[in-house]
């Protein structure tokens, strides 16, 4: 069953926390991965790989650079999940 925005945000926040140690509560929709959360490109890839597995989506490498904010990622996952 497809997850809703809140569920995706919570799941994504959990992945960000596991992969980077950043407090899950600070993973908010309007935060930028690089500017606000200070996540480097390699860490972003670990988040993407885990998000793909968790939400059953495929996030092509070309798409990753467009996921600037947490909202971008949540929206992408929501509209592409299987």
């Amino acid at each position, binding site marked *: 069953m497809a997850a809703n925005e809140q569920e995706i945000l919570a799941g994504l926040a959990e992945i960000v*926390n*596991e*992969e*980077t*140690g950043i407090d899950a509560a600070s993973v908010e929709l309007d935060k930028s991965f690089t500017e606000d959360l200070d996540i480097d490109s*390699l860490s972003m*890839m*670990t988040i993407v*790989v885990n998000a*793909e*597995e968790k939400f059953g989506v*495929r996030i092509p490498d070309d798409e990753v650079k467009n996921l600037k904010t947490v909202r971008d990622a949540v929206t992408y996952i929501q509209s592409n999940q299987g």
Partner: protein
Amino acid sequence: MTTTPRIVVTGLGATTPLGGTVAETWEGILAGRSGARPLDVPWVEQYDLPVSFAATLARPPEETLAKVEVRRNDPSAQYALVAAREAWADAGSPEIEPERIGVAIGTGIGGVQTLLEQWDNLREKGPRRVFPLAVPMLMANSPSGTVSLDLGARAGAHTTVSACASGAEAMGYAAEMIRSGRADIVVAGGTEAAMHALPVAGFAAMQALSTRNDDPERASRPYDVDRDGFVLGEGAAVIVLETEEHAKARGAKIYAVLAGLGMSSDAHHITAPEPEGAGASRAMAEAVESAGLALSDISHINAHATSTPVGDVAEANAIRRAFGDHTDSIPVTGTKSMTGHLLGAAGALEAVLTILSVHHRVVPGTINLDNLDPAITLDVVSGEQRALPDGDIAALNNSFGFGGHNVALAIRSI
């Protein structure tokens, strides 16, 4: 000879099969405990491995590291981080210029668990499921790089890879970094995390491991006539080195002097020791000489003594070759009887134990030595520990590795 600065040990750290710290490990050593235990993993049965026990870490790194540090580091780097932080704190967390702090941490096999787990991921789930940190986690220099990041050490981070001599070689490299003026203080040691079916199967295939599956704690028995191979161990040990002048200027406590270093290579066989111990004895003699000591000044040897039938005899021959008649008055111990064989961390751990022996003036006994192999003509300390004399004393720590690497470190009292 010009006076070279004395290099001293001001911090110790270790996570081993006997304990999560140096204090816990030393307590286990003095109590004569074995760190060997049955392997509580599915893969022993899954692959029907001929060896079902090992000297696994007493305290998992999860106890001290942040969750994300565990997630993003291979166990080899995790163990190094645990030991390096303990050593650095023990040295008083010196506040010095990052450009003057160096790191040298060796490993025998590197991030083999990550390598094999990610290979499984690739085969079972495809390339998209290979962890993006796989490469920085599996590389052999990951532990030294990770420790340098953690301490902010910028004088250089180095990785010695010489199988079971790696950790001791790192300490030798560190001493040379200081002597050549490249660094004022160096964090040095070894780490190994090869608890995986493949290394176990590989070592078993070359008949290097003890198969005493029914009695793991009695399996590692250096010099005993019934020894049948080594017991695989894991962990890390790290020391902090600096010049005596530097240590005194900052009011640091000093454990001992890393007084001498000897290295050689056998060029004999990729794994078998040279039976007469020519190369190993040259390393020992060089360590003594470079310490400015005489052979008769050595009052203890912490031997490599892995508990393999061939290796223990070759080392005993090498000791006698180096020390001649002095051999009879040198108490030798084989602490792998308790810790198991930590491969690339072994030399580092035994250097720590040798430093503590000199510092506390006590030689721990070799355990499981019921019947001394008649081919071993050494004064092996077993059962009761033995006191070392007062005054200026020095001890030697031997480490040898597949590839024919020989490293001897001379430790002198302060």
